[in-house]
């Protein structure tokens, strides 16, 4: 993304010396903005200005990686405030916490529970991402032992939650190769923490007690040479977190460099229902990592689902899986409806078949997630495709009859489809809302 003329002009020395070949610094700024000139032509530009202009070409929010291998998570690189403007890029990583005050058995049991937080949603596997190990004891050796135990029992990357550099160092000696997130640095310990994070080349959380202190601290950490950062404004009350998350994202998109990193939020309310609601807010409002305490699948499943929905690409039609769906207590005599796998289309049909109170089968043909009329116009909803789909899904083994009901909008397909498939084709209503009436009049009539 390019800089505007004004932003460039502000970084120029304003000497109007003409050494760049332009009559004024202003003219030079304009030439730079339009890409007709290179900054190298100006011999007087300061190193700081050069840095500022160079960094402007970097994305507004840095990409930060936690972990290694297939369970590694990437965060950041976001470019919008609202998902409908483009899309949210990297789904929020969900971290579940354990404490070093728990006994070895308790830790192993909770980690085993966390490992099982893997869910099947719309044909894909979705899971939690991180295990956060808290240094609740305050003791470095105890902490290192807990971290070791967790690391041995899970494939998920770790979050080392301790603000004690001695404890973090002991833990890093054991697990640095897995690239855990160090959480982290604050105004009191940032030099020691940054040196550790640099030494082991791991990402680190920077925590300020408010946005001002956070910005200040980030600049200090960057000056020490570490840029794999995740931000924590220190807020824990949900209203304040919402405010801070919004500000951090908004300022980052305006290229405020200190806030150009992913964020972490903590939904650690004692009331699990409240904690889930808070985590939901953070998932919707820009948090890159959310830490929760509960490993109860009932608490985690709604968050996984919300994350999946929020981070889908709104520009891409959402498709349902192409398979035989059974609505109600179907029998081999139940009717078969053919439609497309655009989720809106499928759910319309499914809702109306359900409303008819006649159990039925629905087959959403794979049209790359586009609607019936669009699929027909694009040549993706053809008699050939429908025939191939019912054959490959083995529909003939499911039902005793040989009848297909197609959408009324594509009535013209009926002859060819009947010929190709060998099934009798009934042309249904144009709108799925007419299915209940259609079934009354035409099915078993």
């Amino acid at each position, binding site marked *: 993304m390019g800089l505007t003329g004004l932003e460039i002009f502000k970084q120029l020395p304003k000497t109007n010396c003409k050494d760049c070949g332009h009559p004024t610094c*202003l003219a030079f700024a304009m030439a730079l903005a339009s890409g007709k000139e290179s900054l190298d032509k100006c011999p007087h530009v300061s190193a700081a200005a050069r840095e500022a202009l160079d960094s402007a070409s970097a994305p507004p929010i840095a990409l930060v990686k936690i972990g290694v291998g297939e369970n590694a998570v990437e965060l950041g690189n976001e470019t919008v405030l609202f998902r409908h403007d483009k899309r949210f890029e990297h789904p929020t990583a969900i971290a579940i916490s354990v404490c070093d005050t728990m006994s070895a058995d308790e830790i192993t049991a909770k980690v085993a529970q966390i490992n099982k937080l893997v869910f099947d949603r719309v044909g894909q596997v979705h899971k939690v991402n991180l295990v956060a190990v808290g240094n609740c004891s305050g003791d470095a050796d105890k902490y290192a032992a807990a971290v070791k135990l967790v690391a041995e029992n899970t494939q998920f990357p770790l979050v080392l939650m301790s603000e004690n550099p001695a404890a973090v160092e002991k833990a890093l000696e054991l697990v640095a190769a897995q690239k855990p997130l160090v959480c982290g640095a604050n105004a009191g310990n940032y030099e020691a923490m940054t040196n550790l994070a640099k030494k082991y080349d791991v990402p680190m959380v920077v925590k300020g007690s408010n946005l001002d202190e956070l910005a200040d601290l980030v600049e200090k950490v960057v000056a020490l040479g570490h840029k794999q950062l995740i931000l924590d404004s220190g807020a824990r009350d949900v209203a304040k977190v919402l405010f801070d998350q919004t500000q951090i994202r908004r300022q980052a998109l305006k290229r405020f460099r200190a806030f150009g990193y992913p964020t972490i939020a903590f939904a650690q309310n004692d009331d699990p229902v409240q904690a889930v609601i808070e985590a939901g807010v953070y998932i919707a409002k820009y948090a890159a990592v959310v830490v929760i305490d509960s490993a109860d699948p009932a608490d985690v499943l709604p968050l996984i689902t919300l994350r999946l929905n929020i981070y889908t690409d709104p520009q891409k039609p959402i498709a349902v899986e192409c398979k035989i769906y059974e609505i109600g207590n179907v029998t081999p005599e139940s009717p078969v409806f053919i439609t497309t796998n655009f989720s809106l289309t499928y759910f319309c049909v499914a809702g109306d078949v359900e409303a008819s109170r006649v159990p039925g089968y629905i087959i959403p043909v794979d049209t790359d997630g586009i609607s019936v009329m669009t699929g027909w116009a694009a040549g993706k909803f053809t008699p050939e495709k429908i025939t191939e789909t019912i054959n490959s899904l083995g529909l003939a083994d499911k039902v005793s009859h040989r009848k297909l009901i197609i959408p009324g909008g594509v009535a013209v397909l009926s002859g060819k489809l009947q010929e190709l498939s060998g099934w009798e084709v009934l042309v249904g209503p144009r709108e799925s809302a007419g299915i209940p009436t259609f079934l009354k009049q035409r099915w078993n009539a």
Partner: protein
Amino acid sequence: MILIGERINGMFKDIREAILNKDPEPVRHWAKRQYEAGAHYLDVNTGPTVEAKDQPKVMEWLVNICNETVPLPCCIDSTNPEAIEAGCAANKHGKVMINSTHADQWKMDIYIPMAVKYNAALIGLAMNEKGVPKSAADRAALAMEIVVNADAHGLPMEDLYIDPLMLPVNVAQEHGLEVLEAIRQIKALAPGVRTTLGLSNSSQRCTNRHLLNRTFLIMAMACGLDSAIADVDDPELINAVAAANLFLNKEIYCDSFLKTFRQR
């Protein structure tokens, strides 16, 4: 698209006579009519027949009548700084607009601080005493002068409206493309800076003026035009703007988009 109704201008005979006779009725009539047509601002200009020393008083009188009649802010149109200041002080609704400064330093030194003082929007013409530049690049360079000066005085970029100056198509046809390109370039000068056009100028002494005006307006909107001083009494122009807003994804489509656009 911010529409500035052009009609309350002493260049028109009815307004000139209204000023002469101290008769507020024609001004009220046009304030109301432009408001109902969908204007967001009322341009107010005393016209050149009012003597310079009387212009501040006349401006204040005009602005007061507009303010009493409709809840729209005025766009104070004058080459006389005292008249502009009087208009800014009299405006009671919304954000007053100053029309205009040139890129000449002495003019910017008057009008930019005045805009900041009255929390006003400011129209900056991309020209100087040498006249209207020909190329898009020269227009953008003059616009940049205004942008930098406005920024130095702390005028928010959202309050700066740069006018790249359109000339009549019958005598200066080659300017059209340059103005369209200049609008694109001006939008890239600074974050948030806005653009405007004195639209009716593009069709001075041409036939089919309404057609020419609205065609150029829609082309300019596609290049990023934010505002225009225009004949809002032309319903086809308003219809075209409402339609263009849909294609530019500035407003959500509905079947009654012509009506909703007029309701603001």
